[in-house]
């Protein structure tokens, strides 16, 4: 009974438990269903999302079966490859790989499958539908389960542009590499420590060091030259500071041969701007250096040879001029020894020939100097009108025999002095006029001087030298300005000369900044046109002085001259000239003797040879200028053996006052001496002491009174005489001359009394050619008065 009741209850509980379990089951089943629905939704949304990503991707994304045949592919593939998605499904990507790469591609992916490598990347080209070619970079993943490949997935990117850019970069690199290789330039790349990273083939050819020899080493170590090593080190420091430069070094090849390299070095920086080393382009300049060296040797030889030529010319000048000086000098002196007419004729010939010889030497020296660029342009202020007038007179005189007139057409508008090189202009006109005289037998030679345009501080003067001579053939007209070229070969033979005159003239015109042109007609004449610039001045022209020859010698009588000259023949020539002028002189054989003489005796003038033993003329002059006696300021005339322009300059620099170029005529010497003596008022009159004694006895008071009266009146008397002479008032000239004769005697000026006497005589005969004499008298008066003043202690 009890058991039955228990069973009943148990049963009841079992039923209840079954229902409970059914309820739980239903509940679980519903939960499962809902979870499943949820999962499905999630899955579909995920697929959607991934599909979108896959479709929007720029890369081809595809899935393959276990053998790689396409199961799914996104639409971008169509855009890249040109095939539709339908056309691609079921195909294998290797079908599209280009022929040239198929082998590599298949080998690569076979290996991936064999080694079960999960992910790989490979680049290759494929053919597109339109026949084009694209580069793809493909990532392939194998889907592996239990060691078996069950599928593949891949992402392929179109890298055509990138490949093309790479290709372009590669081609550029190749291009530049090929340029550098073809340009025969050695390339060296070094790191920050100067150690080689790479070198090219050409560098190896150049130096013998291969890339293997160099890598990781300091290239400057192959250069044993310490100086070169220092240069390279300093350049490496420059590189670090970021600067490039080009330099040359001397090095040694691997085989020990020397090599000169020109290196163009530049620093290299990484993207962040940090210094990462430098690159050097090397050029083998050994051959150029060798040539340069040879050129330098050749140049130095040429310079030596040029110097030798110059020295030779200077010596030749001295050697020829010295004896020529004697020949000319003696010829002049012989002329004064009452030669017969026949002898005079011979002397003339000697003189003429010597002068020609002298001219030739001068011309050769001048052109050598000019062509060596040593003719110096020395500006002075001078009166051009006076210069051309003198030239006209000189040539007019010379052409008297030929019956050829020499005329001057001078522009009146030229009314001031100008600044230019007086020597150059003189030489130019002398050469052109000399040339005209040589080739003109009849008719006239005309020198025209016209004022041209004024530009700023300059005034252009047009000079024309026109003749009616033989003319120049058109064929030769272009050559006449060339050195040693005359119009034709026969000219030299017929007319003589070196053909240098015109060449010198042209050079000097150009040195003066001017131009020269020539026009000519055979048998009609030749005309030279010159246009020369001068600097303007406000200085008025020098008043014209009478051109008559004056008996200068007399006025130099009594001065004391020191002669320094080593050459015996020159000593003799100078002695004769000075004797003739009644000039007192002392001759010394060298500078040292002359200096000693100057220490002990006061002179009025020194004639100084330049080339002398012991002490030359320059040294002696400098020493004289340092003397403590009155000779310190003495006028010194240099007697130079050469006409070289720079010697002229040098004598003035060392303190000489003028120079005479040997050989010189007695007149040239007298003119030079006179100019200096008159300029310094050094002409001394030897007052006639014997007359003083005879007339005044011991009565100095009377003598002083008489001399003072003379000094008081003399200025007025001379003024009257001057006026009378200018007016050619013979009566008055006679009166004044006569009246003063005795005054001059009483003043001790017996030396000048004969001049007054001659003037008096001429005037009394009503002849008025006393102008020269009067001029001589007036010129002498200042020093005469000076001597008188000294006599009475004034």
């Amino acid at each position, binding site marked *: 009974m009890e*058991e039955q*009741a228990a069973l009943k209850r*148990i049963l009841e*509980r079992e*039923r*209840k*438990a079954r229902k409970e*379990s059914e309820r*739980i089951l239903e509940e679980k089943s519903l939960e499962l269903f809902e979870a499943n629905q949820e999962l499905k939704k999630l899955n579909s949304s995920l697929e959607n999302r991934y599909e979108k990503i896959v479709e929007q991707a720029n890369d081809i994304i595809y899935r393959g079966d276990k053998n790689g045949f396409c199961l799914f592919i996104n639409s971008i593939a169509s855009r890249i490859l040109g095939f539709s998605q339908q056309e691609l499904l079921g195909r294998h990507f290797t079908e599209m790989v280009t022929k040239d790469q198929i082998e590599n591609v298949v080998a690569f992916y076979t290996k991936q499958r064999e080694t079960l490598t999960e992910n790989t990347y490979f680049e290759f080209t494929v053919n597109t539908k339109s026949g084009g070619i694209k580069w793809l970079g493909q990532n392939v993943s194998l889907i592996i389960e239990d060691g078996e490949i069950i599928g593949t997935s891949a992402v392929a990117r179109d890298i055509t542009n990138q490949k093309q850019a790479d290709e372009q970069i590669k081609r550029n690199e190749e291009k530049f590499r090929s340029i550098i290789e073809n340009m025969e330039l050695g390339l060296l790349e070094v790191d920050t420590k100067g150690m080689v990273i790479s070198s090219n083939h050409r560098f190896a050819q150049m130096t013998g060091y291969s890339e293997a020899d160099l890598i990781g080493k300091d290239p400057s170590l192959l250069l044993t030259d310490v100086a070169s090593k220092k240069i390279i080190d300093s350049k490496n420091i420059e590189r670090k500071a970021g600067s490039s430069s080009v330099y040359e070094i001397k090095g040694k090849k691997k085989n020990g041969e020397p090599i000169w390299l020109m290196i163009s070095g530049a620093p290299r920086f990484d993207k962040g701007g940090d210094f990462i080393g430098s690159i050097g382009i090397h050029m083998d300049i050994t051959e150029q250096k060798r040539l340069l060296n040879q050129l330098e040797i050749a140049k130095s030889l040429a310079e030596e040879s040029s110097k030798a030529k110059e020295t030779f010319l200077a010596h030749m000048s001295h050697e020829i001029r010295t004896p020529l000086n004697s020949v000319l000098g003696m010829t002049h002196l012989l002329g004064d020894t009452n030669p017969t007419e026949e002898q005079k004729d011979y002397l003339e010939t000697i003189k003429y020939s010597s002068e020609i010889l002298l001219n030739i030497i001068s011309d050769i020296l001048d052109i050598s100097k000019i062509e060596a660029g040593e003719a110096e342009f020395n500006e002075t202020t001078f009166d051009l009108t006076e210069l051309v007038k003198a030239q006209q007179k000189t040539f007019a005189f010379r052409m008297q025999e030929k019956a050829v007139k020499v005329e001057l057409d001078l522009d009146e508008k030229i009314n001031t002095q100008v600044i230019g090189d007086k020597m150059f202009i003189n030489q130019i006109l002398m050469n052109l006029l000399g040339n005209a005289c040589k080739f003109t037998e009849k008719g006239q030679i005309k020198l025209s001087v016209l004022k041209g345009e004024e530009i700023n501080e300059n005034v252009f003067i047009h000079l024309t030298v026109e003749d009616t001579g033989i003319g120049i053939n058109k064929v030769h007209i272009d050559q006449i300005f060339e050195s040693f070229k005359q119009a034709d070969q026969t000219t030299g033979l017929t007319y003589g000369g070196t053909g240098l005159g015109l060449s010198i003239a042209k050079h000097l015109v150009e040195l003066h900044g001017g131009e020269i042109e020539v026009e000519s007609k055979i048998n009609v004449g030749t005309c030279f046109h010159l246009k020369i610039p001068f600097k303007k001045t406000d200085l008025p022209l020098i008043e014209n002085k009478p051109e008559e020859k004056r008996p200068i010698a007399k006025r130099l009588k009594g001065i004391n001259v020191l002669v320094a000259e080593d050459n015996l023949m020159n000593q003799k020539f100078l002695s004769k000239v000075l004797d003739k002028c009644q000039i007192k002189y002392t001759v010394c054989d060298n500078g040292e003797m002359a200096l000693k003489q100057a220490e002990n005796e006061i002179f009025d003038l020194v004639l100084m040879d330049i080339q002398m033993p012991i002490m030359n003329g320059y040294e002696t002059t400098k020493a004289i200028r340092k003397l403590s006696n009155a000779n310190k300021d003495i006028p010194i005339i240099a007697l130079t053996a050469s006409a070289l322009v720079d010697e002229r300059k040098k004598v003035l620099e060392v303190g000489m006052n003028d120079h005479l170029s040997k050989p010189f005529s007695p007149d040239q010497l007298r003119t030079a001496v006179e100019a200096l003596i008159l300029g310094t008022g050094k002409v001394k009159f030897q007052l006639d002491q014997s007359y003083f004694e005879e007339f005044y006895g011991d009565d100095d008071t009377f003598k002083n009174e008489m001399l003072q009266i003379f000094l008081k009146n003399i200025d007025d008397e001379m003024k009257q005489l001057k006026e009378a002479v200018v007016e050619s008032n013979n009566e008055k000239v006679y009166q004044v001359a006569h009246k003063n004769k005795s005054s001059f005697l009483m003043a001790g000026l017996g030396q000048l009394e004969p001049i007054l006497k001659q003037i008096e005589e001429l005037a009394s005969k009503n002849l008025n050619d006393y102008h020269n004499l009067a001029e001589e008298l007036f010129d002498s008066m200042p020093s005469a008065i000076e001597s008188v003043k000294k006599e009475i202690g004034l």
Partner: protein
Amino acid sequence: MKGIVFTEFLDMVEREFGIVVADNIVTKSNLSSGGAYTSVGTYDHGEMVQLVTHLSDEINTPVNTLLLVYGEYFFQVLADSYPKFFADIPDAFTFLSGIENHIHVEVLKLYPDAELPRFDISRIDENTLQMVYHSERKLAAFARGLLNSSIKHFGEQIEIESKDISGDGGIVQFTLVKA
């Protein structure tokens, strides 16, 4: 607590002590489930405590003895129902060493909300395995029953010594030594 523990317990009581005893302990207990258990359900742990306590009174046997016996019984139920737990397992030590990483993982797959004890296991030497039981349920006797049956299952001679570390059966150390 999982329903299977209740259903198998009542099955064992019915089989061992008759349906009257089984009905009595259910009737005497104050059970919110009403004693209608299904193996897929989950019930309050306190119901099991009432059932065991009433059974102990009914047959005059200590609770721990009952739990030990039930453990030995329950192991057999599991072994019969889930033979794959024992596939390729050569001996008891191998089986017991894998209890945390293998058996409990499988149990959780079947009963996701099962509340399982934790065992800290260390192999002392070739013949000795130490297992420390941790559980708030304090059912170390039940665990001992499971251990006894598992050793029996592999047919091995292994002595088990137990030591109540927490004193209340919450943490108990079992030392298994092969004979």
